[in-house]
């Protein structure tokens, strides 16, 4: 569903992403993790077609994003960390607009249950300025899901959601994956990723440190303890070896 070959993004001389390659199959959920500045958001923006990569190729559902952007983008949805909405459009008008952009026939029949599922059906005539942050995020999600994308990217999807919203979001991600969508989630919330992701890609300094299932990356980074969780694996993968502790004098303090 998603195939990335030698993706490289430069900003002047700064290498944001360096020769990144990986692929995701239908039904897989990939957790994209890494410290701040690792290149996660840049990678997602390249994969969504927002910024062109400097080098490399990206295929979405078999369509080359550079050569067939329309066919590729028709299949994907991108949810940035901050919901992007148009101030002047009501909830329902947002969906009407998106339906035309993605050419969704009978969109009303899809939009109504979608709004109900996201619990914003009663807000259909309200403007984004009248919605809470969580509601705005739900509206952005409704807009992104209206055209039934087969590839979904989430950038920090849980920011601003309440505990119930977090639970619903996790369920929704898993539901889409079970329906055959390929999903990438970029987040610093490692416990969330551990719950919903089938695969992990750890980036550092724009480069791939490791890619695989939790079991596979555990094997590589937790030789001494096979039961290491994602957080421990993350630290071992991204942090330089710790400085050995100073030698403590054996002479007891008096």
């Amino acid at each position: 569903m998603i195939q990335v070959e030698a993706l490289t993004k430069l900003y002047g001389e700064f290498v944001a992403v360096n020769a990144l390659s990986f692929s995701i199959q239908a039904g897989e959920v990939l957790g994209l993790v890494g410290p701040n500045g690792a290149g996660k958001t840049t990678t997602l923006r390249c994969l969504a077609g927002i910024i062109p990569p400097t080098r490399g190729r990206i295929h979405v559902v078999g369509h080359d994003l550079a050569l067939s952007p329309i066919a590729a983008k028709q299949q994907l949805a991108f949810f940035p960390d901050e919901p992007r909405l148009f101030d002047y459009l009501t909830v329902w008008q947002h969906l009407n607009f998106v339906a035309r952009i993605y050419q969704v026939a009978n969109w009303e029949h899809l939009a109504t249950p979608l709004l109900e599922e996201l619990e914003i059906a009663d807000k259909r005539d309200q403007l984004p300025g009248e919605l809470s942050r969580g509601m705005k995020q739900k509206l952005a999600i409704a807009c992104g899901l209206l055209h039934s994308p087969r590839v979904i990217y989430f950038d920090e999807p849980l920011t601003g959601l309440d505990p119930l919203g977090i639970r619903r979001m996790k369920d929704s991600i898993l539901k889409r994956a079970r329906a055959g969508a390929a999903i990438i989630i970029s987040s610093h919330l490692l416990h969330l990723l551990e719950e919903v992701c089938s695969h992990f890609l750890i980036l550092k300094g724009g480069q791939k440190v490791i890619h695989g299932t939790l079991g596979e990356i555990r094997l590589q980074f937790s030789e001494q303890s096979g039961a290491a969780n994602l957080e421990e694996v993350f630290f071992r993968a991204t942090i330089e070896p710790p400085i050995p502790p100073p030698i403590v004098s054996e002479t007891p303090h008096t």
Partner: protein
Amino acid sequence: MISALCYLQYHSVRNRLLARFRRLKQPKYLAGAVVGGVYFYFYFFRWMFAGRGRHSLAAGAATPLDPQLYELLGAFLLFVVVLLAWVLPHQRAALAFTEAEVAFLFPAPITRRGLIQFKLLRSQAGIFLTTVLLAFLTNRFGIGGKMVIHLAGWWLMLSLLNLHFLGSSFALTALMDRGLAHWKRRLGVLAVVLAGVGVVVAWAVRALPPLTADRLVDLDAILDYARQVLVSGPLPYLLYPFRLVVRPYLAANPLDFLVALGPVLLLLVAHYWWVMRADVAFEEGSVEAARKLAEKVAALRSGKWSGGGRKIKSKRAPFALASIGPRPVALLWKNLLGAGQAFTLRLWITLAAIGVGVSFGLHGASAESSWRLVAGSIAGMMGIMLLMMGPQIIRQDFRQDLPQSDLLKVYPLRGWQVALGEILAPAVILTGVQWLLLLVAAGGFWRAGIDLSSALLLAMTVGAAILLPMFNVISLLIPNAAVLLFPGWFQTGKDAPQGIEATGQRLIFALGQLLALVVALVPAGGVFVGILLLFKFWFANYAGSLVLAVPIAAAAATVVLTAEAGLGIMLLGWLFERLDISAEPAA
């Protein structure tokens, strides 16, 4: 403690300036700074110290009475400003802090006095900037020379006003806390003012020759009367404190300035003491003010030019948008919805009032003109103005959607489709309004006794109507291309170009836009003139043939404009696809 606050202020200003200087490494910002610098030099700086009577129109025409008149006029204006500060406010006192300052300073062990001192210190940055700007303006357009005196004079006035505003806001809050209603306070202030006005009127009636009906139509007589009221009688005494404040600015020489300085310094000290001793809780109001400021800044950063102040209302869609059809129409639909926010009842009332006012003016200026001709002339003038300024006024295109470029890029649309969709709304709005004005103008000129046959008027109207849509698209392409080429120049909020650099960028942009428009219109203009010449060559009755020639020439020119517009939209789409707003440096 105040040293920590000084440290904060010093480093905030310093770092901001350094960031702006660093941005000058980029040619586009450097070019803006250079052009802006040249503009400011030729327009303001060279007048700074060059007054000395040479460029001073006002000084040259001075009479012995003028200094006193200026002083009283200045004092009167100052009085009005101060009066408004006592009448208008209806909120609690609030010191203008940012949200970060509220978060750091309010919980910190800093006294109220420390916070007020910090606020006063920080306001000096704005006062210095305003002082320099006002000194430039007054030296450029008013009394030349004496730049140092003017700088000092403006600084004294602004600093005193700043302290007075703060003091009055504290005093009003104290009155509010004691349960005094706003209307009672306003009534009290206005009663005092009315008492003063009564004294002046009583004196004028007794001491000055009456303003009889025949003198009321003589502007000079009215001005002379006003001058006498201002410079003699009780008014100069009533305005005495305000005269003291403007006196340093109007000092003729350094010695006069020093003499005038003493009383103003005393007033400054008295105001400082008043503000420091005021025991009023300003924290609550400041937190609210900081929140509003943060909202405004956030709105500006996300490209909302209104600064988030105006409440957006949901509007009915301009037309039903089917889910299947050309995708750019979705952007047209969305932007028309956005534009609907601007077309409020207030706007229509304002436009109607302007139209009626101008009509009366024009009709009065020429008694022979019929109302129909006046209406036609106004519509024609407005149409021409809209042709030139419309693309700058109606901005429901990339200029509005630049902050949403990430969202637009995810959509399954080619770059040219996005460009077309974005351009359509302002083009449709402009064309619609222009067609309406054209119709009114044609109706006004129709058989109105002007030297233009009805047939030719109709031909010109049809020709203009054919040309307008593509002309508008071409005009709109230029500012949109500029936004995509130089997104940094169109950033808003903290990262926006400011000061000299912004002025320079605007000048370059205006010049570039004019040049690009002229270049774009040359081929179409050539075709238009060529066809008219062909008709002249072929038809013996050239004047008669114009009825046919004008619409045909307009249609041919429109074909050329359409081809140019098509190319322009392709180029705009290509620019949009290459746009990466995140690569723009912040300042």
